[in-house]
């Protein structure tokens, strides 16, 4: 029952996202504009501005939700999340480092290349730390350190850029936004994210076995190193590609798995699809809110997800205090 409901929510929110925007388009002309026909301006607005935005919100939300669920399963840590453990901010830094230094010209393709590299390095680093010291707290603290470091480096690169607009883009890279994206961003990110979903999905059986502990998992025939590789590549692809086109959007991967877990049989594998769909729905909703909360000025969507996610995180920490210390 859970998956159809969440899928329906994604569909409805995608439709709602297509209907929200500063241009006053009525329902009929919106629909006409989306499926060709109707007047030219409505068609451009629907197909070139609103459709890519809705698609990116949906697919980036799916990536973040799925990556959150997989990381929580692999690390057996309820607080693991791409944003919290520094994967998204590392992806941001990777994108910024390659794009703004002009190493690849002003080409958009520089963004995912850098972001994927940044995300992959950070996941590898975190796995190394987790392998050495399995405590929940160690991983979170390492993630906090990594987030601060890469955030500072991102700001540094942007401040040093001779382009006067670069400094303003610190906000975009640290808080994320889906404003004025285009279909070229969708084509840039979607194939990479989809590949990431496949890799993350392939780790499902191993995650179930890992919930019994690493030794039990090995005795069940799970090759841990292969699982780790799947998760590293899958997270780097899905989170890295999303961050490359929308900046760092946090907390989706933390909140969603916790929200849907009570409705599942609590096996890590049965959490993956609901978390992905829930992530898509949550980011779509947050992005709609970002556009309508203050009608004259659009908010950064990362601000809204943080407003929802940070108190939730705090509550989780307080609740799990005994386990942590």
């Amino acid at each position, binding site marked *: 029952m859970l998956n159809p409901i969440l899928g329906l929510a994604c569909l409805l929110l995608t439709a709602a996202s297509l209907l929200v*925007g*500063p*241009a*006053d*388009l009525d329902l009929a002309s919106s629909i006409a504009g989306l499926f060709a026909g109707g007047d*030219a*301006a*409505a068609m*451009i*607005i629907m197909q*070139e*501005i*609103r459709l890519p935005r809705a698609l990116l919100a949906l697919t980036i939300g799916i990536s973040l939700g799925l990556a959150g669920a997989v990381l929580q399963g692999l690390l057996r840590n309820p607080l693991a999340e791409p944003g919290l453990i520094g994967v998204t901010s590392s992806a941001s830094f990777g994108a910024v480092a390659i*794009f*703004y230094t*002009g190493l690849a*010209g*002003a080409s*958009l393709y520089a963004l995912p290349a850098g972001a994927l590299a940044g995300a992959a390095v950070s996941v590898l680093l975190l796995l190394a730390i987790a392998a050495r010291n399995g405590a929940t707290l160690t991983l979170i603290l390492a993630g906090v350190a990594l987030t601060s470091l890469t955030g500072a480096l991102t700001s540094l690169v942007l401040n040093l*850029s*001779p*382009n*006067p*607009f*670069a400094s*303003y*883009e610190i906000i*975009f890279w640290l808080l994320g936004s889906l404003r*004025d994206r*285009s*279909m*070229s961003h969708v084509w840039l990110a979607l194939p990479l994210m989809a590949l990431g979903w496949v890799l993350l999905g392939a780790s499902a059986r191993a995650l179930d076995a890992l919930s019994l502990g690493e030794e039990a998992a090995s005795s069940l025939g799970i090759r841990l190193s292969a699982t780790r590789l799947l998760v590293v590549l899958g997270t780097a692809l899905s989170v890295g590609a999303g961050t490359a086109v929308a900046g760092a959007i946090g907390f989706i991967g933390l909140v969603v798995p916790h929200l849907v877990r009570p409705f599942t049989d609590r096996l890590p594998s049965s959490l993956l699809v609901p978390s992905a769909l829930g992530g898509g729905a949550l980011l779509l909703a947050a992005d709609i809110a970002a556009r309508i909360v203050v009608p004259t000025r*659009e908010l950064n969507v990362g601000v809204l997800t943080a407003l929802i996610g940070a108190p939730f995180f705090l509550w989780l920490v307080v609740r799990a205090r005994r386990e942590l210390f």
Partner: protein
Amino acid sequence: MRTSPADRKGRSFITPPSVLPDFSPARRVIAPSFAARDLATRWGGEGRNETGGSAQGGRPPRGRRRKALVLVAFASAISTTSYAADLPRVMSMNVCTDQLVLLLAEPSQIASLSDLSLDPSLSFLHEEAAPYPKNSGRAEEVFLSKPDLVVTGTFSLHNTTSLLEALDFAVEEFAYDQSVDTIAGEIRRMGALIGQDAKAEQIASAYERDLADLRARQCSTKPAAIAYEQNGVVLSEGTLADSVIEAAGLTNLATELGYSAMTPLPLEQLVSHEPDIVIVSEPMTDAPALADQIAQHPALRSLESSRIGAFVPRGAWACGGPFVIEAVRALTALREEIASCAPAR
């Protein structure tokens, strides 16, 4: 023409024709790099505008003769200026005052210019500024060079300005809120401050004449234009660009929509109003930034009935100065290309 050795030496920087403010289209034409070039060739080259005409991506077709006249005016102004030794030495700390100083002062009068004067996207006279010393707007630099006069903008460096005033330096501020109609006054004011009244009068009145001539070409058909800058910021009511658009006989869509100053305009709004002309700006530097990508958004390119390009010569409307006339001229030419003023049927 005076020929004293000192004079000739002092002038060697600014002797025509190499360093004179050169408004010739050959050098100043919109060089639409990046998307603007794409867009200009795409929209211009194929002549998609309904009124036809040979679309050239906004290149001003007329005005070579007029520019030659302006050049002659500058040349004669220079030949009649007085001996430089007793004129005040001036230090400019703002990119806009830099250019007024460059136009009016003798080279020996210029203590230093701001370092932004070399930025081609802000400073129309950036090549002329190259030979002079630069400052970065710090009070210490003023102490070291001890100029007779410091000129700066009201918009910049308030702390420095008040510190210098407290220390009895002569500081003159020039307002940032300008329009095509305040420019002649600013030129005359700068001329009076640095003892170049005659030259200022000549440049200012030539500017006023040109502006009046261009305004006379306006007609009742006023196509809608919009200046869409980095990050989708529009230049609307109260900006110099707004008054340039108005003087060129166009309507500024952003002002019509009730925007003022520099405000972000959602791309959807722009698309839904389908302006006749979208003036996008070129990247300010070679260093990439996401801000510049709005000009390449497919939604903008899909506007079939709009002309999209840089159109305004680089740096021509970043500051008030006689070169603003080049922006008015380019937009007037563009307007006449897309909407003829021929008497209505």
